[in-house]
């Protein structure tokens, strides 16, 4: 395997591992703030029960995100030195603003949020919780701005082969940025709501009937049911935006080889890039034209338009993009079905049933799968470009020996695989422990108002 492929796999493994945890912390921060505010409003201790359980998971997820994020900041240099040389004038300030405006904010106030409950007033603690949630979201804003700029670059000019900024507003709010940001924030919300619903259902299966667990379950299921239709609509808009700015990516997503009207919606196929056709295709006539152009006669660009006269292929590899997109959409539809059904089932204070609880447990990490599949769609779909029209992935690669990349890659994989197992096992363990601590159908274990009466000392 060549060094560029290895560098991509290593970076891809790292960023895939990393994104799992911000996807949780971005939205979970706001959910924790919601729990605190609901307690402040109602005075019902179940909200603080939910808060104190989920803040543990927040802390663990945050730590996983921080350490894998530090790795990212180094791998820009070790894996893609050509990237900063060519577009460092654009990427640099965006990354710097992320560190300055978001990282420190979340890192410093996280300490107060996690361990300062008995040391600061309730108001300061709520403000700290807000600043952590705000920080994670600001972080997402900058990193999505940079990623979107790489997809749809604007507001710059090339001088001596190096990108120079001409309009920072156009750089930050580039054409795909608003769509990608909304899509990602909603993905985070969905990931968290299914995680909350799943782990709460797991606790329910372990005979946890505490009000704190019930309110978390209800929050998770309801939030999912609200967000999923919004996400499907936002995703559709994002797709239309991609069709306008990155038609080759959409052609790969739909496995559409030739530019034509009445393009069918391919439900399943095995795209073959050698013969440039789909095998075993199952399709709905005119479907893709209807979705993308809202017209059965709509003309959709095909992949063959992105092959140069000398045979050089300038479109992404078709099969990974095609399948990743279908996995994302498939999980999204499952989310719609499960969250709406569960919301309907739990109406009027109805209790769970074991089979429904198991379904929710099964969907606990569905957000991760959809998020990863979505990122693979958009990132592989950007190839062969690293920055569309400006820099190819090959040009940005370093000349580090393949053997060195391979050995560190294996080391990272071993560490990450171990950590993922430990993370999920620990989530299960703390859920199980929480369930055991609150036995019985109606736990009356509550918090003493003014919890500072039990100081941490």
């Amino acid at each position: 395997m060549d060094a560029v492929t290895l560098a991509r796999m290593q970076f891809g493994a790292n960023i895939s591992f990393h994104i799992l945890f911000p996807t949780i912390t971005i939205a979970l921060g706001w959910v924790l703030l919601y729990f605190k505010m609901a307690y402040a409003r109602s005075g019902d201790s179940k909200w603080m029960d939910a808060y104190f359980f989920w803040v543990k998971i927040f802390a663990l997820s945050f730590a996983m995100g921080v350490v894998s994020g530090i790795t990212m900041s180094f791998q820009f240099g070790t894996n893609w030195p050509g990237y900063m040389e060519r577009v460092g004038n654009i990427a640099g300030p965006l990354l710097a603003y992320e560190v300055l405006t978001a990282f420190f904010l979340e890192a410093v106030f996280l300490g107060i949020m996690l361990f300062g409950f008995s040391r600061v007033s309730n108001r300061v603690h709520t403000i700290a919780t807000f600043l952590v949630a705000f920080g994670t979201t600001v972080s997402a804003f900058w990193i999505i701005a940079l990623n979107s700029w790489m997809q749809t670059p604007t507001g710059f000019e090339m001088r001596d082969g190096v990108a120079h900024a001409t309009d920072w507003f156009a750089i930050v709010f580039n054409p795909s940025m608003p769509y990608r940001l909304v899509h990602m924030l909603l993905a985070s919300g969905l990931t968290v709501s299914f995680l909350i619903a799943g782990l709460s259902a797991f606790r329910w299966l372990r005979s946890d009937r505490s009000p704190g667990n019930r309110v978390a379950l209800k929050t998770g299921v309801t939030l999912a049911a609200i967000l999923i239709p919004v996400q499907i609509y936002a995703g559709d808009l994002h797709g239309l935006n991609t069709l306008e700015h990155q038609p080759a990516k959409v052609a790969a997503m739909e496995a559409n080889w030739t530019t034509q009207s009445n393009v069918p919606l391919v439900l399943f196929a095995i795209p073959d890039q050698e013969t440039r056709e789909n095998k075993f295709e199952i399709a709905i006539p005119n479907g893709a034209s209807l979705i993308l152009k809202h017209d059965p006669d709509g003309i959709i660009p095909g992949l063959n338009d992105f092959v140069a006269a000398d045979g050089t292929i300038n479109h992404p590899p078709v099969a990974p993009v095609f399948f990743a997109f279908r996995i994302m959409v498939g999980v999204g539809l499952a989310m719609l079905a499960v969250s709406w059904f569960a919301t309907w089932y739990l109406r009027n204070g109805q209790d769970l049933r074991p089979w429904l609880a198991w379904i929710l447990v099964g969907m606990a990490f569905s957000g991760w799968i959809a998020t990863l599949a979505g990122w693979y769609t958009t990132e592989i779909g950007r190839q062969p470009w690293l920055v569309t029209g400006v820099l190819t992935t090959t040009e940005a690669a370093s000349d580090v020996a393949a053997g060195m990349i391979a050995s560190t890659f294996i080391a990272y994989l071993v560490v990450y695989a171990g950590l993922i197992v430990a993370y999920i096992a620990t989530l299960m363990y703390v859920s199980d422990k929480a369930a055991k601590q609150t036995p019985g159908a109606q736990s009356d274990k509550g918090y003493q108002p003014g919890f500072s009466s039990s100081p941490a000392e």
Partner: protein
Amino acid sequence: MGDLSDPTVWLPLVFAGLMGLSILIYVVLDGYDLGIGMLMIVAEDDEKDRMIASIGPFWDANETWLVLAVGLLLVAFPTAHGTILTALYLPVALMLIGLILRGVAFDFRAKVSPPRKPLWNFLFFLGSLIAALSQGFMLGMYVMGLDWTLAHVAFAALIACCLAAAYMTIGSTWLIYKMEDLLQKKAVTWAKRTLIFTAFGMGTISLATPLVSPRIFDKWFSFPEILALAPLPLGAGALFLGLVLILRKLPKDKDRHAWLPLFLTGNIFVLGFLGLAYSFYPYVVPDKLTIYEAAAAPESLTIILIGTLFVLPAILIYTAFAYYVFRGKATDLSYD
């Protein structure tokens, strides 16, 4: 140095200063928590919980200074970022794995079932050790001009051990400040034992730096520059002496002067850093690439600088606030 009114002159200088400041803050702050991670191996189980509790609210923010330092290298000196990190590819990867292990072990050890806790305690120690050794190794290779020969690797390995010892020294002094009773006494012993290696490491780097580079040799030993440099070794010597004297007397009644070893060690780090900065300026890649050659475009640096000038004071203020909230002797960590 050139004309200071020219942005291509003063902007790289300002950013080199900011990057240096971030590295210095990182080495002092993460130095003490990495040091405590390494000292875990010689502590009893109940002591481990208290040691962790003393760094719990801070470690995450401490590591953010590393992200800022690397971030500034990346954004202000992009070509140097590529060159340095490619030359140090393996130690960087090792350090990252070390930082990953210790960062997550911190949280896992508090949440896993009791039989698993010793494993995560060990991983916390191991990650801290790997990270500290890798950083020391990188420092050694940097001083040797990022040139991989057997002799240089051996030198870097020696510096790796000394930096790990230096982190343990500052970690011990943090414990002296934050702990009471037996653990505080133990920390005094740990500080004494590791201090000698810290001094040895600083001495070795001070000797090696001018010998490796004729340019630095001239900068050090020509007159009158030697007069400007003299306060650094003299000051460091005085700080070491003061540290040895105070460690003999600690702990005192009513916990007087418990903060002093931390203060002195922090200043030793500052002087060591200033010595390196003096030697290597204006180079960011030793004897190959100056900060002026490696700097990003002025318009990009300007936009970062504006943000930095607004945000950095805020960061310092709320960091100070966090240290104020968790002032005094460390107590057991709890979420409520």
